[in-house]
C-alpha cells in the first residue's frame, strides 16, 4: 500500500484509524469516507448556502489527515473530527467574508438526487434555511451549541468571547429563529 506519511507509528489501537495513522492509504480513505457525510453536514450547518460545502469539507478532511497522528482516542473519533471541522469551517467563513466573491452562477454540482419526501433530509434543509437568515456570529453560536453540543462556557472558549457574549448571541439567535418560523420558513 502506498504510504501516506513517514510520521511516528500509531499509538491508538483502533484498527482502521491506527492503520491510517501508520500511513495506510486505503485505511485513510476508509476512515475519511466514514466521516464524510457528517463533516459535510456540519459544514453546511456552519456555512450559508450549498456552494462551498464540498470545498470546505475537503479542507476539513485534509486537516484531519494531517492531524491524524495526534489523535489519541481521548474522545470519540467523530467528535474529534467535529472540532477540526468547526475550526476549519469558521476559518474558511472568515476568509470568504473578507475576500471578494466570484460570480459562481455556473458552478457545477456533484449532488445526487434527493427525494423531496425524505423527512429527515427535508427537516434539515428547512432548518438550514432558517439558519441562513441569521447573522454569521449568531449562526455559529447556534450550531456549536445545539448541533455540536458545546456548553455555553465551551462555546465562549471556542470562539474566544466572554461568556455573556456567547449567551447573548444564542438568545438573539433564538429570537430571530422564532420570528422566522412564525413568518414561515424563508
Amino acid at each position: 500500500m502506498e504510504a501516506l506519511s513517514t510520521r511516528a507509528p500509531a499509538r491508538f489501537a483502533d484498527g482502521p484509524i491506527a492503520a491510517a495513522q501508520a500511513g495506510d492509504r486505503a485505511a485513510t480513505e476508509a476512515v475519511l469516507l466514514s466521516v464524510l457525510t457528517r463533516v459535510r453536514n456540519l459544514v453546511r450547518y456552519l456555512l450559508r448556502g450549498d456552494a462551498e460545502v464540498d470545498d470546505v469539507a475537503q479542507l476539513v478532511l485534509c486537516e484531519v489527515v494531517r492531524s491524524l497522528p495526534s489523535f489519541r482516542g481521548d474522545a470519540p473519533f467523530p467528535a474529534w473530527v467535529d472540532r477540526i471541522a468547526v475550526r476549519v469551517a469558521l476559518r474558511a467563513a472568515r476568509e470568504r467574508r473578507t475576500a471578494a466573491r466570484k460570480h459562481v452562477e455556473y458552478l457545477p454540482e456533484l449532488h445526487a438526487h434527493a427525494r423531496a419526501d425524505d423527512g429527515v433530509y427535508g427537516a434539515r434543509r428547512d432548518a438550514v434555511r432558517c439558519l441562513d437568515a441569521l447573522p454569521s456570529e449568531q449562526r455559529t453560536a447556534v450550531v456549536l451549541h445545539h448541533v455540536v453540543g458545546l456548553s455555553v462556557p465551551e462555546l465562549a472558549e471556542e470562539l474566544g468571547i466572554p461568556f455573556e457574549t456567547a449567551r447573548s448571541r444564542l438568545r438573539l439567535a433564538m429570537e430571530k429563529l422564532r420570528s422566522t418560523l412564525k413568518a414561515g420558513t424563508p
Partner: protein
Amino acid sequence: MTYGDSSDDTELPGALRAGLTLDDARGPARPLTDEAARALVGSAIADARAPRRTRRVPAWAAAAAAVLCVGTGASAALLYAGRARVAEEAERGASSGTDTAHRTVTANATRTTSGTGTGSASGTGTGPETANGTDAVTLPKTAHETGAETGIANGTERVHGVASARGTAAARRGRERGRARVAVAEPDVARDLLAQANAERARGAFREARALYAQAAERAPGSLSAYAADVAAASLALEHLGDAREAARLYARALAERPDGPLDAEARWGAARAAARLGDTTGERTALRALVKTHPASALAPRAEARLEALGDAP
C-alpha cells in the same frame, strides 16, 4: 441541547429540533454521489501531502477527475458508458494492438472500485448520477484471450492479433510482457500528465497546467484521459485564463470525441458558459437545450432550464 445552563431564551424552538442534529443521515448537506465522495476524499489526501499554502483543486473538479482517472475513474466510466461501450473499447484496443493494456487498465479499475481515485482534478463536473456506484462489470474477452484459445487449437500462437509460431514458451511470455509494458505506457503517461496538470493547477500555475493537459490529450488521443484533459483544460481556460474562445474549442472537441461521455453534461454546461462569455447567445441556447434534452435528470438540467428561461427561451 443545553448543559447545565438551561434557559428558555437559549432553548431551540421545537420546530427546529429535528432539523438540527448531527449524524450520518442525509442532510442538511445535499447528498453526494459515491464517485464524487471518493474523489473528494482522494483530493483531500492529495492535498494533505502537498506543501501547505498551495491552491487546492476545487472539489467539483476532483470529482470529475475521479470519473476519468484510471482506477476508480475508469470503472466509473465503464459503468456510465455501459457494456456496449466496454465492448467498443476492447474492440478498438484489440485492433490497435493495445488490448492487453486495456485489459490490464480496466482490470485494475474494477479491483479498485471501492475508491482509489487520485483526487486530482482534470474536469469540470461529475458524471451522470447512478443509483449504485458499485455494480460489477464483466469485461469482454480480449482478442488476445480469444486468439490464444483458437491459436492453441490451431497449433499457432496469437499475441495481440499477430500470428506467430516462433519461440519457446518462455520467449513468448517475455514478448507478451514486453508488449504489455509498452502497450500500457501511453495511458499511464497520460494519466500521470493529468495528475501533474492538476498539481500545477492547485499551485495556481495555470499556464503550466494548460500545457500539461494538452500533452495528456496528445499522448493518448481518443482515450478517456484525453477527453478528461480537454474538459479540464476548457474549464481552466474559461475560469482562470480568460480564454473563452479556447474553452469553447476544447469543450466542442470533447463533445465531438465522446458524445455520450461521462462528462457530457458538464461539457455542455461549460460550452454554454463559454458561449455566454463570447456573447454568442445562440450558441449558449443551443448548448443549454441540448443539455436539458440529453440529460434531463442531471443536476445541471434545472440550472440550464433556469438560464434558458432567463434568456427568454420558454420550455
